[in-house]
């Protein structure tokens, strides 16, 4: 199910008996920037196209989709990923959301705490000494972390 939020809108419209002009209706998406939306639309179209090409062959669909996703990741900046996640989340677009979440997980794999903070644009909001305690608690996880 793609773009569930948008579909919802159409369903509501139909219920209100507005049939014509669907192709020219403007749907307000206040929480989505144009750039991530464009990427999501492309992603969605591509997914449908690949699915149509490999009608019965689920494996082929998965493989082609993976290749496309790899290509897409090369063009997207890591920082854009969080925007894409927020957009996919708002639009209720599950496949894209899962994909971008996985991409974010890869991006922060084996990285330091500071890197992860910067990546998500977060500040440490721990109480005094709490971070020290946490670092001690998870001491085993700090070996072999990548240089920032």
């Amino acid at each position: 199910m793609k773009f569930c939020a948008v579909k919802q809108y159409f369903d509501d419209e139909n219920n209100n008996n507005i049939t014509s002009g669907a192709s020219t209706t403007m749907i307000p998406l206040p929480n989505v920037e144009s750039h991530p939306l464009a990427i999501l639309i492309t992603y969605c179209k591509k997914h449908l196209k690949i699915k149509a090409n490999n009608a019965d062959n689920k494996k082929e669909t998965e493989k082609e989709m993976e290749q496309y996703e790899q290509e897409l990741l090369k063009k997207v900046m890591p920082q854009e990923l969080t925007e894409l996640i927020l957009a996919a989340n708002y639009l209720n677009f599950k496949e894209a959301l899962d994909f971008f979440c996985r991409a974010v997980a890869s991006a922060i794999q084996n990285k330091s705490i500071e890197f992860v903070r910067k990546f998500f644009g977060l500040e440490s909001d721990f109480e005094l000494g709490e971070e020290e305690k946490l670092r001690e608690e998870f001491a085993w996880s700090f070996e072999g972390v990548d240089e920032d």
Partner: protein
Amino acid sequence: MDLETVGGLVLHTILSNLTPKDTAIAACVSNKLKSSASEDILWSKFCSQELDLNEPIDPLGNPTPSFKACYQAWREAFSMYPWPLVMRVKKCWGRLKNWLSINFPEAEATLRKGVSEVEIQESERILKVKLPLPTRILYRFCDGQEINAKKSSGSAGGSLLGLIGGYSYYSHLVNVFLLPLNEVVSNTKPIIRQIGFSSRSKYIVVAFSHTETEKFFFLNCTTGQLHVGTVNLATEGEMIPCVPNALISSVHDSNGDQQQDAMLLWLEEHARRLENGMIKLREERGTRSISLFPEEPPFCSTAITNGVKVRASAVFVPEIADLQNENAKYTFSYSIRMSLQREGCVINGIPFSSCQLNWRHWIIRANDHVESDFNAEAVIGKYPLLLPGEREFVYESCTPLPTSLGSIEGSFTFVPGRLADPKGAPFEVEVARFPLQLPDYIF
């Protein structure tokens, strides 16, 4: 970019793709991430995947309040070792204990709890060795077997519970136990002295047969290889390596990529053989033990003639091997099992309700060269009478061989009915060829 606005579900999706290590790091980033990263469902997945745990139990067997606390406890308890190696050793013991709990619970009951780091260091100090990494972790998980276990019926009962198992032929009986660390310490010095090694030798005794027949396994702490004593152990200190040398690596290197020593490889191979049924439990006179005679092809042959089924396989006997004797370097013991199918003995369409063995014809080959080809009466002095559908008649014997590869095949002459009252003409029953082979893993 504002991750703050993103819901818990999205954070959970991101985190569920992370390794335990990255999840832990995420927990140190901010309060929001800490809360998401602390969800126990993430840690229960890690406990299941990495430690095969479905319940939160710490290394000492005590329950922990959450899976997260459980995973932490395990990482901390083994923080001095490479984690992938810890997981591998845990899996190995898991497989062995699992097989035992299903098939041989009386032997599982002899397994002792793992030792502590302190006990390992103390043992190393007394023995003046440094144990290879994988062996240390093996002892952390399980400290060998209780040797003076509760004895079942008869004095032999308690001594056939060896994890490694054994075999017997004529009066030669072995059944090998893994020694607890304190027994390793108390047995190593006197045995090393007895076989004439220097007191600074890096060999320790890790397993032996708890029967009258002697069979000793030594671990070389420097190389990480396991050796078994031959017939010349006491006089020459002669031993045979038990595991392919090429597989042993990085036994003392914490930073190495794949540490594996002979103990770990040996136990993993043993677990494999138990799991795939190559070796099985055998019951003799009411007592069960792990028998090292192969039960499956290609090492065990099967042939059925006129309803008589004969299964045959051999095992290498290292404790009798004599590397200095060109003519009889290697000795093999073989086990022959015969039985009569339910339909009875059917010859040319005529059924008979029994048959009895009279003669055997044996052909023993060393490589492809026939070493001996002879006919003789009976098998180990017996003339087994086979009745339909009964348990197999099993007997063992042995043969020396000048080479590490050979084979045995032959046939038995049976008469339908009984020898005292034959119901027809004698007929030959095939014993299909089975290999005599020096194995790459010696048990």
